[in-house]
């Protein structure tokens, strides 16, 4: 059984044709990486899987556990186990992180309602693991956070919300080496036989810590090459130009 199946996915933003026939399958427990130059459509793919309303699917689609999710709202997808770690998480001033996350947890896991105290303990444990400063928890969601702090908070959310598919959109960008190690360790701790990850990145360096089972290269809205971990090494040495396909 496939967890995620993307077939002939064509996506437009306004009149702009961004994804031009993406095919990708992931089984439970697998970690896939999508690499590619800027503007190749990687982040669009992440947003479309999560259900961003700014994009229109013109052909093909996305199946989750065998069911088409093209027309589901983002919150319905989240409740079915999809999580997106944002490249640029929004700030929501005044909204306490813990209050927000407890609401989110109860929305996603209504059968598993945790008390305020139980949730608080989980929150503290996860925050410690990710070395998130205590005082950040008292601020509004992402309010005045540095880029690195925002990324750590995304992974904290992932840890607490327990999705079956975690999509990491450029989680490594803006992280210094220590933060990258911490975040990678956090992700690795969450890798299980059932949980899959889709790691979207421009650079190879995060893949050295979060080692993928599969690597795909996306250029001009298509996956042009797939392979194992060795492909990432090739990209590191040779860049993307040798793969470049002329635009139609």
């Amino acid at each position, binding site marked *: 059984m496939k967890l995620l199946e993307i077939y002939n996915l064509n996506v437009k933003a306004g009149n702009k044709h961004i994804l031009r026939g993406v095919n990708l399958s992931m089984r439970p427990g697998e970690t896939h990486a999508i690499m590619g130059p800027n503007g190749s459509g990687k982040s669009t793919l992440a947003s479309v899987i999560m259900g961003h309303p700014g994009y229109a699917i013109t052909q093909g689609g996305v199946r989750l556990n065998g069911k088409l999710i093209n027309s589901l*709202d983002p*919150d319905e997808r989240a409740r079915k186990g999809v999580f997106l770690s944002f490249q640029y998480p929004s700030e*929501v*001033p*005044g909204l306490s992180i813990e209050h*927000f996350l407890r609401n989110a947890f109860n929305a996603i896991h209504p059968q598993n309602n945790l008390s305020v105290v139980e949730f608080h303990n989980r929150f503290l444990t996860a925050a410690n693991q990710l070395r998130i400063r205590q005082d950040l928890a008292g601020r509004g969601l992402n309010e005045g956070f540095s880029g690195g702090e925002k990324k750590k908070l995304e992974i904290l959310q992932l840890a607490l919300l327990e999705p079956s598919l975690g999509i990491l959109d450029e989680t490594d960008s803006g992280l210094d080496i220590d933060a990258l190690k911490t975040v990678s360790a956090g992700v690795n701790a969450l890798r299980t036989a059932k949980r899959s990850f889709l790691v979207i990145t421009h650079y190879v360096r995060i893949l050295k810590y979060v080692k993928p089972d599969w690597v795909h290269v996306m250029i001009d809205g298509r996956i042009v090459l797939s392979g194992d971990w060795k492909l990432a090494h090739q990209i590191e040495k040779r860049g993307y130009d040798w793969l470049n396909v002329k635009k139609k």
Partner: protein
Amino acid sequence: MRPKATNEELLTRPDDVAYLFKAKKGLSERVVREISHLKGESDWMRDIRLRAYQVFLKKKMPTWGGDLSKIRFEDIFYYMKPVEKVFQNWSDVPTAIRSTYQRLGIPQAEQKYLSGVMAQYESEAVYHNLKDRMGKNGVIFEDMDTALKKYPEIVKKYFGRVIPAGDNKFAALNTAVWSGGSFVYVPAGVKVEFPLQAYFRINARNAGQFERTLIVAEPGSFVHYVEGCTAPVYTTNSLHSAVVEIIVKPGARVRYTTVQNWSKNVYNLVTKRSFVYEEGVMEWVDGNLGSKLTMKYPSVYLLGRKAHGEVLSIALAGDGQHQDAGGKAIHGAPETTSRIISKSIAKETGRTSYRGLVRVPRGMTGAKSNVVCDALLLDERSRSDTYPTMEIKESDVQIGHEASVGKIGEEQLFYLRSRGLSEAEAMNLIVAGFIEPIAKELPLEYAVELNRLIQLEMEGSVG
């Protein structure tokens, strides 16, 4: 019953309140005399009213702020005494009203009172206990009409001192026809440890449309006064014009919290001002919901060295509403400090305006003022404006001003929805976060009610 219909119906429903006495529609010298006579007032108060009426006639309508052209002074009842029982029993109260009260989480005893089933609030005894305790310290807490009879000297000494009838047309109107409101007197050094709120909630129904409130805090005293309640106050009276005067003597501190939710046909034009003397502290915390147009700018006149004033306000303008609110700080002594924070939310055709004034005349060295006004727009049609006026004539001062207008963006909503929250839940969390810095200053139960009420208001704005 559908929640949206419930709230709408409640806020627009004409009320069926019967009145024991109703003065004639419209205003004349005779009506003013009649009001004073019916209340059995002394000549001096009658004369204040009559003089104020002449001022009212002479004063022009404000040409700034909101649209006041639809006010018909001749169509308004200026004095009404409601009968005690409106509905015979709880089951006669319209379901719409009952369910809104329930959804607001107002205790049933209080629901019955607010809807008019109970003439006497059950916690009357509690109130009397509080009053006895206060009485021992010399604290006076009465409705204004009673205070005028029981303590005429004190009332006479301070009435109209902070806001004279000549201040503006609506202050003149209030002075001419006022009825109800509260009188609070706190003797020197007495700190009232509980907010004076339970009483006013009881009294809310009788608050009327031209209430007059006067608070005198003697040196070194403290009192927190809470007025209004978040239950919709619905009325066919289309004009609410109150006056609140506060005197904060040296080293005293007064906090005045208002949360009001007027029905959507009401012009809410209120003058609130405080005189703050040396090292005194005045804090206005103001939540404005409902009404057709609100114009309200609580003011602090800092008249003694190191006096401090704060104006914290939240305004929500729904469809067809205009909230023109803000604050004023007049630095009339050196080393005085002020802080004005305004948070407003507009949705659909709603409009919020921040209007503020900070004045520091020459010689007021060491004055500090900080103004922050943030507006949140919920959709494309809503509107917000900022009219900050700074008159700074002294150079040895620290003045800060920040203004922001934000929209609930698609990205922000998408972000929260990607965490499993519905669109409505996401909107509610964003709005609750936005007002949090001020909501946390409210007494807890008011903050909870305010959040619930804003949620109710927002249910109509998301699909």
